[in-house]
């Protein structure tokens, strides 16, 4: 069974209208940008996207939004995207906002065969509406469920032909807990190496969680907010 795919188009060939897709990255950091571009190009519609953020107007999931390819967005923070806010306020987009830690844990639970767990995040707020709440050890918790996604798409720095992944710096973010969280997980990497080249002690995501892997054609790695300080002279 081959895991290695030639490019984003091939790896995403069977993503079709109305599917649910989990996508890695935090803001524009560690974003599976080649896969997103492929989804934009193929014009697949009616998607439910689960991702921490919704991209910016002209990059990341913002590209799918502008194209009206997203029916529903599940995220924790969507504040960097004017088009998103417009579609939401106009009722063109269904949005479910959930706490960031709950999002991360629900992704991990999806990959790990945990159907439900309890978290204190959001107890007493509108996040808890319609959900079971319960006291443990004197504190109140909400029961949260795993996701059921068709695909999970993650981005790593290096990967090997067995699907093993290594992330760089703060790009590990949601990519790690999302790997394995869909029926099929696609990983795109900056550099694809033969199995055996990565140190087995330093792999972040074991290849068993990854069904398809490809080396992205190019990475723009756009920065959302460049903040710097002047060098003292």
């Amino acid at each position, binding site marked *: 069974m081959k895991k290695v795919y030639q490019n984003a188009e091939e790896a995403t060939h069977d993503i079709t209208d109305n599917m649910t897709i989990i996508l890695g990255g*935090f*803001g*524009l*950091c*560690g974003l599976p940008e080649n896969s997103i571009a492929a989804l934009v190009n193929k014009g697949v519609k009616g998607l439910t996207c689960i991702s*921490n953020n919704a991209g910016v107007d002209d990059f990341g999931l913002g590209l799918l939004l502008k194209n009206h390819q997203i029916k529903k967005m599940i*995220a*924790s*923070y*969507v*504040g*960097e995207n004017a088009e998103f*806010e417009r579609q*939401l*306020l106009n009722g063109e987009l269904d*949005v479910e*906002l*959930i*706490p*960031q*830690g*709950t*999002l*991360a*844990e629900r*992704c*991990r639970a999806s990959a790990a065969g945990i159907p439900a767990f309890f*978290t*204190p*995040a*959001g*107890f*007493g*707020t*509108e*996040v808890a509406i319609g959900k079971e709440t319960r006291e443990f050890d004197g504190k109140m918790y909400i029961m949260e469920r795993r996701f059921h996604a068709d695909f999970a798409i993650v981005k790593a*720095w290096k990967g090997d032909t067995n699907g093993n992944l290594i*992330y*760089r*710096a*703060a*790009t*590990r*973010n*949601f*990519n*790690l*807990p999302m790997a394995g969280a869909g029926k099929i997980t696609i990983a795109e990497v900056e550099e694809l190496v033969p199995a055996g080249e990565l140190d087995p002690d330093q792999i*972040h995501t074991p290849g068993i969680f990854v069904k398809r892997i490809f080396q992205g054609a190019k990475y723009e*790695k*756009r*920065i*959302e*907010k*460049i*903040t*710097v*300080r*002047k*060098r003292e002279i």
Partner: protein
Amino acid sequence: MLDKDGIAKRIAKELQDGFYVNLGIGIPTLVANYVPEGMNVTFQSENGMLGMGPFPYEGEQDADVINAGKQTVTMLPGGVYFDSATSFAMIRGEHVDLTVLGAMEVSEKGDIANWKIPGKMVKGMGGAMDLVASAKNIIVAMQHENKAGESKLLPQCTLPLTGIGCVKKIVTELAFLEVTEDGFKLLERAPGVSVDDIKKATLGKLIIEGEIPEMVI
């Protein structure tokens, strides 16, 4: 009256050696600039960094090294990167010693609202709900009143809540307060601010016991 840096400086006095601290966006971020000399404090950024350092020098920014506010930052020696599930394990598991965040409203019961203005703003809660539901020690850094001149320290919040009964302390441009079972207890006045000024700006129950000292920053 304190400016933003003054608020950050007062909060910095609450730091203790060895603390792991999560700083929210805005005024809280400034706290990092006022860690007392010789004190070892580690900053957690919930997107996956412990040991977050200052902004990079011009030209040295790295798209893979950002903080929770999506700003380019640096990693200090001895720091570590991790994933979002591990990050919120730290937070929910109460391994973070102090959380500092902004607020639109705080109630006298310690409820906090800071993520949504119905019909106006829908940015999302990000990690704030996890942080306020989990942290042992939460300090709110904010202005005492909103731009319309209305108190942000209320009997109860009017905006959708982020968390309930969680805020422990508040630092504003006017005062340093503690949230107690009975209401907002005034601990310190900002320099040049009178108890009356604080009374006028506080809509929730304010507890004033004895002489209220002026802050030393």
